[in-house]
């Protein structure tokens, strides 16, 4: 069942993104930014965590999840270490994925070239 919900929820989030892309002047970069901010705001409202619990990868694979993990990191560290946590907590949970993207970007840039 976990696959079905992941497929449906992940797919639907992408459909929303596609509609924004097709019906506005936004580029895909704008849409990605919009989703990250939306994920963050939904986390602030306490709505994204239940979605992740329910849909698993359906909610954690879309880029809105970045907003969720970054905001969750801030909240966690605010609780633990106080005001400094607002900054120190940002990459606590989401840093791994960003580091992975940067590292693999570097690696593949060394190994390959653009094919067009």
């Amino acid at each position, binding site marked *: 069942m976990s696959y079905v919900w992941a497929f449906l929820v992940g797919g639907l989030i992408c459909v929303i993104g596609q509609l924004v892309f097709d019906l506005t002047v936004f580029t895909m970069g704008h849409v990605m930014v919009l989703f990250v901010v939306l994920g963050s705001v939904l986390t602030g409202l306490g709505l994204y965590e239940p979605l992740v619990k329910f849909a698993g*990868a359906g909610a954690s694979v879309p880029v809105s999840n970045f907003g969720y993990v970054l905001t969750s990191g801030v909240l966690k560290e605010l609780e633990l270490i106080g005001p400094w946590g607002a900054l120190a907590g940002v990459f606590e949970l989401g840093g791994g994925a960003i580091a992975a993207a940067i590292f*693999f970007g570097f690696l593949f840039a060394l190994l390959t070239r653009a094919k067009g």
Partner: protein
Amino acid sequence: MAQTKEQQKRAQEEYQRLARRHRPRPPLLRNALLAFLVGGAISAAGQGVLNFFVAQGLPPDKAGGPTAGVMVFLGAFLTALGVYDKIGQVGGAGSAIPITGFANSIVAAAIEFKTEGFVMGMAARMYQIAGPVITYGVTSAIVVGLLRFLIAGG
């Protein structure tokens, strides 16, 4: 014959109205369906990776990080093979919104701009699309996090 600003503006508005009538619309339904299928498939693949880590004994809330790492690698790998841009042309937001799309945006730029050097080319410009995502993600996380902490107490 010199047009006044007013006339010029009216001519522009009139032409843009005309152009809108003749502009082909993106196939909304088809694009949405493809975004759904591609985005859904990538999410389901992510679920597979997540389930694998959980089966290895990781608690579900700790399995998200490594899952993201694996998905990033897959997106990066398909970009390096020159495949992800083809998926993107079909899948649209279905391949851009998942975290594999985020990886694609970094790796595509990194590969592309290495011709302008490994420091100011590849390393500087790999954040062309990912940079805004990170910038707004970080800013939003701090603002939203603080607001929630102050209002709801965490």
